[in-house]
């Protein structure tokens, strides 16, 4: 198949139907062929191909020096990754679940994020940290958390979260080429559900540009990752039940944030709902509310509503009620009209 390149808008790129998993795998293959400084490593990324299969075939194709398993230490994975990046490589480190990143958190916050700044630009850390995040797979609190807010609050890091296979591929390739450390968070709930046309071969999506996932006029919904399809269903409900025309903005990158697109949309609609899976208090959605309340409050015709995970650890049996679902989001949308 062929389709218009979603990034440039021009040309006819060849495409192929892929799941998000396949698109991520494809992105790494493309970049590993393209740049021999790219190495992929982490726990079980070699022969096993990753616990979700995102690194399937890489070890076979590129060998031990380019794709390898590591000892069970996130501290080591990330510390070694920083060293590689400082030395001039393009490390792509996989953290098996985002919940397990904390043993290596120091290397991200204190080292990767600050290397360029603290050395006056002499040393840089172009590393990508890939990790599946979020709920939706019955993983309990240690295989389900969404802690993007921690990283967004850490100057020096970029934070990227795709919601479609094509974006996953394009954003991942752009992240690997980026000169700064990037947290590339993969919404595991839609690893296989998201399935769509993806450009074959070379394909990049610029970091820092949001995507209007759906145009609308009455209310803006800001979301990212696995919440995008949930919000799309909620928008359908809001349309059906109350005739609301919902605009959905898929942020794609949280840092750098595309404030321009956000503010344009909310100024147009005058109403906004912010949706995220993480615990409500202190989540990145609060930052979005705050930006709007600081820069566009005079356009607001209702409260800035947040629909988010609850302020509890991620539960196991009650996961379906913990995560924002279409009904809950639709209720949030309605609240911007009637409160």
């Amino acid at each position, binding site marked *: 198949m062929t389709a218009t390149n979603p990034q440039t808008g021009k040309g006819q790129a060849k495409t192929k139907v892929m799941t998000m998993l396949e698109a991520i795998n494809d992105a790494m293959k493309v970049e590993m062929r393209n740049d021999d400084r790219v190495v992929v490593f982490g*726990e*079980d990324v*070699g*022969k*096993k*191909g990753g*616990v*979700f299969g995102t690194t399937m075939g890489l070890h076979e194709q590129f060998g031990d020096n380019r794709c390898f*398993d*590591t*000892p*069970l*230490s996130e*501290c*080591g994975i990330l510390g070694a990754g920083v060293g590689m990046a400082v030395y001039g490589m393009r490390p792509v480190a996989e953290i098996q679940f985002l*919940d*397990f990143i*904390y*043993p290596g958190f120091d290397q991200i916050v204190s080292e990767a994020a600050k290397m360029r700044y603290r050395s006056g630009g002499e040393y840089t850390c172009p590393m990508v940290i890939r990790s599946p995040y979020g*709920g*939706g*797979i*019955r*993983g*309990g*609190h*240690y*295989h389900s958390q969404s802690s993007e807010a921690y990283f967004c609050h850490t100057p020096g890091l970029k934070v990227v979260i795709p919601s479609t296979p094509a974006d996953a591929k394009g954003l991942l390739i752009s992240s690997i080429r980026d000169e700064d450390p990037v947290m590339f968070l993969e919404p*595991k*709930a839609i*690893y*296989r*559900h998201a399935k769509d046309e993806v450009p074959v071969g070379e394909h990049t999506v610029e970091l820092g540009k949001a995507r209007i996932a759906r145009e609308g006029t009455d209310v803006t919904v800001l979301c990212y990752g696995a919440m995008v399809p*949930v919000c799309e269903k909620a928008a359908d409900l809001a349309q059906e039940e109350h005739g609301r025309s919902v605009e959905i903005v898929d942020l794609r990158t949280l840092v750098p944030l595309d404030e321009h697109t956000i503010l344009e949309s909310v100024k147009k609609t005058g109403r906004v709902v912010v949706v995220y899976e993480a615990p*409500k*208090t202190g989540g990145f959605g609060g930052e979005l509310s705050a930006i709007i309340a600081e820069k566009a409050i005079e356009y607001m015709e209702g409260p800035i509503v947040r629909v988010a995970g*609850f*302020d*509890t*650890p991620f*539960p*196991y*049996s*009650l*996961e*379906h*009620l*913990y*995560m*924002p*679902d279409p*009904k*809950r989001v639709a*209720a949030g949308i309605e609240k911007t009209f009637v409160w």
Partner: protein
Amino acid sequence: MSLELVTILDKDGKAQRGKDPNLPPEELQRLYKLMCATRALDERGLALQRQGRIGFYLQSTGQEASHLGSAYALQDSDWLFPAYRQPGILLLRQIPYEKIIAEWFGNSGDTSKGRQMPVHYSFRQANFVSISSPIGTQLSQAAGAGMAAKARGEDTVFMTFCGDGGTSSNDFHCGLNFAAVYKAPVVFVCENNGWAISVPNDKQTASESMAIKADAYGMPGVRVDGNDILAVYRVTKEAVERARRGDGPTLIETVTYRIASHSSSDDADRYRDKKEFEAWQKKDPIARFQRYLKHKKLWSEDFENECVEGTKDEIAAAVKVAEAMPPVGPETMFEDVYMNPTQQLKDQKKHLHDLVQKGGVGAEVGHFPL
């Protein structure tokens, strides 16, 4: 200098002269039955997962001697900071099957209220501290608890477990270091089953053994045949006594094998040589101990039947009871975040209650790990 591998039972089940701990007959039979029950529980757990009745399972098959032999050296008042592959200890400490199985279902019969994935048990009545998924975190906690008990002049001993992969964790390093510096009464058991999911020992560490890592902390390190329950018991008992005497911690490496795949989500055939697996199957710790009992004339067909079939029946009955327990109610989601809920939690609870009343809420949820 390589560490010797401590063994008592030869492969025919004979104890080496002078090394048999000479446990009383009924205790030997009790241990055997516990091993069989642990295996039976495991088989049932995996079956339930395969039938889609529970969401996840993780087996300890092949490691029964390793965790039962070590925990058996404790007193009931001693504490455990376990990893996730020592279910037999729950049986040793007399937790009823229903309670264990209810945890798999995560329903109202579960002591942890359906909050965790299957096999992440917590049983205060057994001094068995809540299991968490992040590898290794229990090791430094055990050190801290040991430091506290010692400072207070109590004689509790703390036993904590990790895998071979766990030796690479931050907490292995600081946990062993703290325990040694403060001479805390802790026994660290590293169950070396050869694999950390798909990563074999030689990619985990270049050290000649896990036990030798004890040198780095100035504590004794012992390597023991983990499929030999008497040997495991014997070395652990010494370590427990040393700890209780105030002479500090020990690292014990039990050399064993993960017979099953890592968990219900894993397929070991993708990365593991069949031959290795088959060789280890021949070293089954239950069969080995059975041969010993036979030598000692403590084994009979009837006894075997009681241990295997009898246990299976009990487990089957317990599954029925556990599965029939009502689900946890939505309101329980907001409990136990703090001792007393914050205003925010109260508001959120009410919000969810209202949504549930209106109907139609509930996110789609897939399977682990897809």
